[in-house]
């Protein structure tokens, strides 16, 4: 069911209100009660955390590959140990 589109005030918000934006008519439930606090600032927090986790994911993957690389280096035939070379 498409919620009715209510007119907004004279700000530019109207730009963002298309038929895609259903104006909520139900009270927030569950996760929404948290996310809508602080004028929806927690939505920004969620987005920043998602990006952070994405970068972390790559960090861990790179770390694992490096560990493998180090193991392969160790497995190479013994060489003359040259400290600081």
């Amino acid at each position, binding site marked *: 069911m498409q*919620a009715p589109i209510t007119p*907004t*005030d004279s*700000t*530019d*918000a109207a*730009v*963002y*209100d*298309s*038929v*895609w*934006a*259903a*104006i*909520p*008519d*139900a*009270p*927030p*439930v569950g*996760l*929404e009660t948290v*996310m*809508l606090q*602080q*004028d*929806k*600032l*927690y*939505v*920004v927090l*969620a*987005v*920043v955390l*998602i*990006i952070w986790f*994405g*970068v972390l*994911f*790559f960090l861990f993957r*790179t770390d694992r*590959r*490096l560990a493998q*690389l180090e193991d*392969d*280096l160790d497995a190479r035939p013994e060489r003359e140990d040259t400290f600081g070379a």
Partner: protein
Amino acid sequence: MNTTRTRYGTGYRFLTIGIAGWMTVVIVAGLVLSIPRLNILEESARNLYFHVPMWFALMAGMIVSAVYSARYLMKPTLERDVRAEQAALVAMLFGVLGLITGMVWARFTWYVGTGKWWNFDPKQSMTAVQLMVFAAYFVLRSSIDEPRKRGRIAAVYNLFAVAIAPFLLYVLPRQLESLHPGGEGSPAFSQTDLAPEMRMVFYPAVIGFIALFWWIYTQRVRLRLAEERLADG
């Protein structure tokens, strides 16, 4: 194949420190500086600084990847193949992050009370299609064992994958009713879509995330080339 070594010296290290500092400032500025108050959007408008640059990073990655795919076809070297592959991989990371951040933003801003995580916005759907096209690039790569053949076929496929991106991500969504700005022209330069005080953070955020892409991408290229050198003995 040749595995000439690219040196990453002091300049690289300073750049990465610069990127880390730059992004720290962008994140703080993005959360602290004041923004115009709009209905529905409220403080979530700050997501402009984080969700939108994901797409700029994706575009940057696709361009880098396509350039190295094209260069590979001109003269096949291991490094060009590695660079094309890793650029596409890191670009996909940002594409997936862009998609997920967009879902979360929409779910708790425009779709409160509806429980809709996926709303079939044209841009959202077309992005999902584009990411699947890219995913196929990696499936294709993993299905060919012979390196030269893999490099060549993957490069050709990649050029097609990148070539359709502007149409799927920019041309098509703007012809349809969408939650995203841009139906009326270019959203980045229209007066109503981006307040002047937000440009002060938005543009540095775009630069910062593209730089972050470059950092992760070069790091992975170094890793892959080191692996290849070790495999060569």
